[in-house]
């Protein structure tokens, strides 16, 4: 069956070289959604987003409309856009900020208007130098165009957006750590409860934190209506979604796909997406939603790209990044490298995560590079169980934030799915692939 071609919602300008300029943005309908929104009551705008049942695109998949409705009543509130994309193999927000910054800004203003919030921060990953420049340039242009500033487009609504660079810390993608960083502190996730920044957020005020892709969907939703968005996809997974495809595929890239209508097989093998495995080798396994997600084997290739569909099989769609291993990929090395990442990025507040990640990493290192023992497998699983008791999915948590329970995902998947390869490594005294 041929893959289903989705309407382009957030990547509609991808064919244009100058997609990031205000000229191209205005020539392709830019800022008309904002004008339409300003002609509506704020609650009508929020109702459209609710009707779209837009799930947050950051990784947790929390409905954006519900997040908005939780905003505690307060004289002052903030909107913060999370552009600190750092989940390994996720590169859709990088794409959106570099290629269509005005779309992000228009969506952000629409959200701010619906929430009646006038102070907005776009927190972007520091390593995105070009993206930071493009978004800052677009903000400057939006002020000039009258879309930002005092009484925008002649309405009663005033708004400021400040572009805020991060400085290199994966943990700042966690929304409370991001708020700490925005307050000028170390990016330590905050102790919960309160669970939601909508209750206590930036400077203790109610704050909505939304992902870049979530915001980028809003101009289309306002232009076409929430119902049109909800008509795409199936069930809870509505609209389209950007999937970042990487690893051993012929055409890695960012692809906008209608939710649920296509399967992982379509995404990885269809010529309009991944185009198959490099050298037409066999696929060994894939990660369905970033390195925090448990892995899937080829038996689940026909699973639809939907939030609930993936959750039912014991993993998550997460940040929408799909990583593909071929028959020659060393899964022990991949799992070790992912653990090394978590060990490096653990903020250090909670003992299970700080100590556990390093300990697991060292055991995984010797399994991959030589010196591994068969009892290391039990040791690694026991350490993982200390971080996330039961090693179930969704995971149990012993730490302040979800970085901790993300550590076991890859290690446990690799050991459960490919135990014999670990044994081969131990018997070979190192990696047989070297």
């Amino acid at each position, binding site marked *: 069956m041929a893959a289903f071609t989705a309407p382009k919602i957030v990547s509609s300008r991808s064919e244009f070289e100058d997609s990031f300029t205000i000229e191209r943005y205005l020539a392709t309908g830019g800022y008309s959604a904002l004008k339409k929104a300003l002609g509506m009551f704020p609650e009508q705008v929020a109702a459209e987003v609710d009707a779209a049942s837009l799930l947050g695109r950051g990784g947790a998949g929390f409905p954006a409309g519900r997040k908005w409705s939780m905003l505690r009543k307060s004289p002052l509130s903030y909107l913060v856009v999370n552009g600190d994309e750092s989940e390994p193999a996720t590169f859709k927000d990088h794409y959106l900020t570099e290629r269509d910054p005005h779309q992000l800004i228009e969506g952000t203003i629409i959200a701010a208007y619906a929430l009646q919030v*006038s102070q907005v921060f776009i927190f972007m990953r520091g390593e995105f130098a070009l993206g930071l420049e493009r978004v800052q340039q677009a903000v400057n242009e939006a*002020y000039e165009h009258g879309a930002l500033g*005092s009484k925008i487009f002649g309405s009663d609504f005033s708004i400021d957006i400040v572009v805020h660079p991060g400085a*290199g810390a994966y943990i700042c993608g966690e929304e409370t750590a991001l708020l700490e960083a925005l307050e*000028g502190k170390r990016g330590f996730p905050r102790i919960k409860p309160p669970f939601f920044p909508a209750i206590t957020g930036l400077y203790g005020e109610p704050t909505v934190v939304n992902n870049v892709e979530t915001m980028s969907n809003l101009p289309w939703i306002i232009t076409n209506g929430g119902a049109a968005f909800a008509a795409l996809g199936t069930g809870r997974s509505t609209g389209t979604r950007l999937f970042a495809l*990487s*690893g051993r595929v012929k055409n890695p890239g960012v692809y906008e796909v209608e939710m649920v209508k296509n399967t992982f097989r379509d995404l990885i093998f269809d010529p309009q997406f991944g185009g198959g495995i490099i050298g037409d080798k066999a696929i060994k396994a894939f990660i369905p939603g970033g390195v925090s997600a448990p892995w899937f084997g080829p038996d689940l290739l026909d699973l639809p790209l939907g939030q609930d569909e993936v959750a039912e099989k014991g993993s998550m769609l997460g940040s929408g990044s799909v990583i593909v291993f071929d028959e020659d990929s060393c899964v022990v090395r991949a799992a070790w*490298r992912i653990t090394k*990442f978590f060990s490096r990025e653990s903020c250090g507040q909670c003992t299970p995560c700080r100590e556990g990640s390093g300990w697991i990493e060292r055991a995984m290192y010797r399994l991959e590079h030589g010196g591994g023992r068969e009892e290391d497998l039990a040791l690694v699983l026991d350490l993982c169980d200390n971080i996330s008791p039961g090693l179930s999915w969704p995971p149990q948590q012993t730490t302040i934030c979800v970085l901790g329970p993300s550590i076991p995902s890859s290690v446990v998947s690799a050991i459960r799915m490919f135990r014999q390869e670990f044994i081969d490594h131990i018997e070979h005294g190192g990696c047989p692939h070297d």
Partner: protein
Amino acid sequence: MSHFTPDIAKRADDLVLLYPVKRSAMLPMLHLAQEQDGYLSDEGIAEVATRLGLSEADVRGTAAFYEMFHLEPVGKYVVGICTNVACLLAGGEELLEHAEKKLGCAVGRTSPDGLFTLEETECLADCNIAPVVQVNHRFVRTTTPEAFDAMIDEVRAGKRETEIPPHGTLIRVRRSVGLNAPREEVVAQRATALKAREARVAQGQK
């Protein structure tokens, strides 16, 4: 006497005005200090501390948490090569090993001529062109040893200066305006809007 040059000092002044709480300017101001000196010098940290009304230890302790801030001098060009999972599958470790030879220094060190510092990075979110290489946080998109060598030679010959500014310079586009919606106005606007919304809801319920 300010350690900052007049230009950096002006930008630091403007920065503080963008935040309701001064300390929020910490990360962008540390980037400015790093832009001026190429790394976070003791003087740079002291200057940021003074401007934010914090102790130097507080500023240093915060800066040390973040990978992009260098507390020791680095080369004019910081070369970052990713070896995280997507790049691992595309030969990131091999490219990093090659880079050590090309630059004549180990990971974490600076080349003998002082021009390049080599780093092994975590995922840089450009995984479709893997392994990912950044120079001063600009994506140079060289995935083979040959392309990497050619890029380094060009940088060394000064041919990439418009694209890759010296280490520390992050955002070359300046914010063109200050805040347009003062805090008092924002609070008043929000109060009016919320009141109007309540009235509409009450009307609707009748």
